[in-house]
């Protein structure tokens, strides 16, 4: 991973809650606030998937949210990376046997980075972002 190149432009993320317990969402926001401050490196949340490089998905994908998740994914421009934050999005987690899930996330859209934990610590989320940057670089060099 060539750090300097990656930081030549900022990484924008769109956050999608697919029915999570809020734990991961709060930790994603906590990651963005002054203690960790990834905005130093241009990492920030944006309000539209069309502007985003990374799709951050939390939650186990309920029936109602599945078509919306697909739509949001399709709206993003290539190259794009999908990052799942949290165990329930990665595997179902505590909600594994629920009747109302279409997830985990990788059964609905392709996933590149998994951040395990229920919820993961902000440091974990930041590590996931670094992996996402590495993946984006690879995708770009292939283009």
């Amino acid at each position, binding site marked *: 991973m060539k750090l300097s190149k990656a930081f030549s432009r900022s990484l924008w993320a769109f956050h999608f809650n697919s029915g999570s317990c*809020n734990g991961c*969402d709060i930790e994603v926001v906590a990651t963005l606030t002054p203690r960790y401050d990834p905005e130093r490196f241009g990492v920030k949340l944006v309000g*539209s998937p069309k502007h985003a490089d990374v799709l951050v998905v939390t939650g186990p994908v309920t029936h*109602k949210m599945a078509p919306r998740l697909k739509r949001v994914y399709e709206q993003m421009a290539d190259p794009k990376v999908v990052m799942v934050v949290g165990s329930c999005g990665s595997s179902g987690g505590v909600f594994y046997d629920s009747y109302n899930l279409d997830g985990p996330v990788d059964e609905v859209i392709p996933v590149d980075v998994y951040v395990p934990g229920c919820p993961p610590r902000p440091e974990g989320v930041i590590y996931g972002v670094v992996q996402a940057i590495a993946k984006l670089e690879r995708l770009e060099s292939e283009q």
Partner: protein
Amino acid sequence: MSEDGKKKASYNVPIGPIHPALKEPCLFNFKMNGEVVEEADFAPGQAHRAIEWMGMRRNPVQIVHLTDRICGICGVSHTLTFARCVEQIAEIEVPERGHYVRTIIAEYERIQSHLLWAGVAAHELGFDTLFHLCWRIREESMDVIEYLTGNRVNYAIIQVGGVRRDFTEDQFPRIEKSLKYYEDLVGKMLKLFLEDKTISLRSKDCGVLSYDDALQLCCVGPTTRASGVNMDVRQDAPYAAYGDIDVTAVLPDVYGGGINGDVYDRIVVRLFEVVQSVGIIRQCLDQMPVGEVLWEKKYPKILAACKKAVGEASASVEAPRGECFHYVRMNGKPEPEAWKVKASTYSNQLAWLKMVTGEQLADLPIIVASIDPCMSCTDRVAVVRNGKRDVLTKEELHRLSVEKTRRLMQ
């Protein structure tokens, strides 16, 4: 506005249901006349994960980890309520010290939740510096929670029959340090929120919920207290260690301004509840008895007691957002036969309809956020005008709100 520009026709603004950070994402529909909301309606239920259904297939010792995840912000309240139900049915007695540990954690949860909310409220008003400040000082409570329980979120500390971890003497100085930290900050926070001209202009007389409406809609928690209803489960039906501690419901007149039931009053109530929580934790530390914290150390024994239990019980707990209520029925099996959860936002949601009617579109973000529905519910808005549909994102709505703040300041 209709094509000729003369006659005003109302139009619909649906908001949601995709919202990146909501426990109960919901679809709003606002009937607008120009900038003003004429009528409002909403449809919750998008994040249904079938928690009760799953719970009825697990045993109580497992369920406490599921209840933590009903809500990542106020998980302790749900777990505590559920544990209290099962304890009543199985006649399990929680040791005194266990009650105190529960109380301390519940109050830390309230502190972090209210600070989180204060940050979101500031963000919705376009005051992002304050948003970041709130979340910065919230980290102090997160640190203490992690120090005491091992987790930042979903603490997994409450078990049927008590708590899973005790506090040790050498942890007290760290707790004390955090209490001091918040006490020193109180003056600053009150000044920033309550004396700020912009915040007053945007939040006073905005999203008003009258005393009668709050009573009729059965609102709970800070939302109802801001309208002057003197109600707090910790005061009215004490549980855990609250019986030994003096708690009285915080009403907005603590700050001198009288009771108006507007967004400003909701800010007042929540800020003063943070002060109150610091006081409660301090009292708990002073009075904490020594002894066990869990009814029985061996979980299989707790499970065996639950398996034998027959009966039904309900319990409520004052969560950061208001009363959280659970009902459980056990029938001699490991799994509960019935389990019903009523979270606080459920009771408060209907108040939105009263609050937003007659308000402007730009005020919606702060009004919707003011009941603390875990987060604001305004990710995405589609405006239907003359059959044409353009989409307003949360950011645009936020921009509208910020612009209104600017206009007011000129």
